[in-house]
């Protein structure tokens, strides 16, 4: 039986096993453009501005991949500002770390500020839940992942929907803000 719950302004704490997305300073990173034929232009590096840009959207099977310790971001179009270590992937990107996966139309990483953002059709998959939203913001300092806009959390026993939702990655806690709706599977 599915029981429908509508609870305004309720704090919900759920246990979600999700590893922290941590980009440690001083570690080595690697950027690769793969699957591109040698005669096709795949990008540019502006040394004066310190901007590296890659675009393989027009090349079938080609990908841009950034690996940083255990974190991997894959997409087709990206820009990296080396001065402040800002990285943006557009045109569909996926970030993975262990069993954490973030997919969004745009993924941004602010290296100096240790922040990660996702925008547009955001999907976060962890070991125990899948979260859908319009935007995703992760701050390594506070270890908070904030989901805003059309948030839907799907887990084994049901799903929750709302407008704003915070996930504390280290402590595996979830927090809802404002009105939300829950659908739970319960046994008779």
């Amino acid at each position, binding site marked *: 039986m599915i029981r429908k719950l509508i609870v305004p302004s309720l704090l919900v704490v759920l246990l979600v096993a999700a590893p922290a997305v941590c980009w440690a*300073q*001083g*570690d*080595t*990173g*690697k*950027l*690769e*453009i*793969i*699957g*591109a*034929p*040698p*005669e*096709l*232009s*795949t*990008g*540019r*590096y*502006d*040394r*004066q501005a310190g901007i*590296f840009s*890659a675009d393989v959207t027009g090349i079938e099977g080609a990908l841009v991949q950034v690996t940083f310790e255990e974190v991997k971001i894959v997409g087709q179009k990206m820009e990296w500002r*080396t001065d402040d270590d800002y990285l943006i992937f557009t045109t569909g990107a996926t970030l993975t770390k262990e069993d954490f996966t973030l997919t969004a139309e745009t993924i941004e990483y602010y290296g100096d500020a240790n922040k990660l953002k996702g925008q547009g059709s955001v999907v976060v998959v962890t070991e125990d839940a899948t979260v859908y939203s319009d935007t995703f913001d992760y701050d390594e300092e506070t270890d908070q992942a904030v989901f805003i806009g059309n948030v839907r959390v799907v887990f084994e026993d049901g799903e929750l929907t709302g407008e704003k939702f915070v996930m504390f990655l280290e402590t595996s806690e979830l927090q809802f803000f404002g009105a939300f709706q829950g659908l739970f599977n319960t046994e008779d």
Partner: protein
Amino acid sequence: MPLSTKAKRIAACSAVLVAVIIFITVRFLSQPAPPAVAVPPSVQLLESRLVGRKDGQRQWEILSRSVLQEGELVTLGDLEEMVVFQDQEPYLNIEAPRAQWNRKTEVLRLYGPVLVVGEQDNFQLESDYLEWLGSSATLVSPGPVRILWSGMEIEAAEMGMDTEKGLVHLSGGVQIRDGGLLWKLEEAVYDLQAESMDFFGNVILEEEAGSD
């Protein structure tokens, strides 16, 4: 005894004939015979300064101890100084043991080890063999090349540098070390003025440890 008129004429004709014979003998027969096979004229000069020009503008200048000209080919040995100019100003200084300039094709071949040192940005280029294509103002290394420029260390299997456009075309096992960044790619075009690089095909960019 006075000579008759006829005798005088015969004597005069004989004298003229003898003079002609002597002249022909001295003028032609005493000189060595010309060679049977034509040989192109060759000239060897010592301690010479050669200047290459295009449209009246100085392209390069070479001070050489030995210059051998054979037709269109000018072979330069024991090079002491070689300067490539851009807009009439020294642009590249080149060290090479031997060079060959084809005047007709405007190709200057530099036999290595060749060292090219730029006037700006600590530019330095090493190769075993270089070609300077005067018609397109392009410096070509058909073989492995190593370039130091503005803090970067560049290696490639081949290189072509368009000095008028300031573009360096690198191909084959290209490696560029720029500070803590190491690029590995197959083909790239570096714009020296804009300090930007367009790359083609697959690329690997590694950020080395401790580069922050």
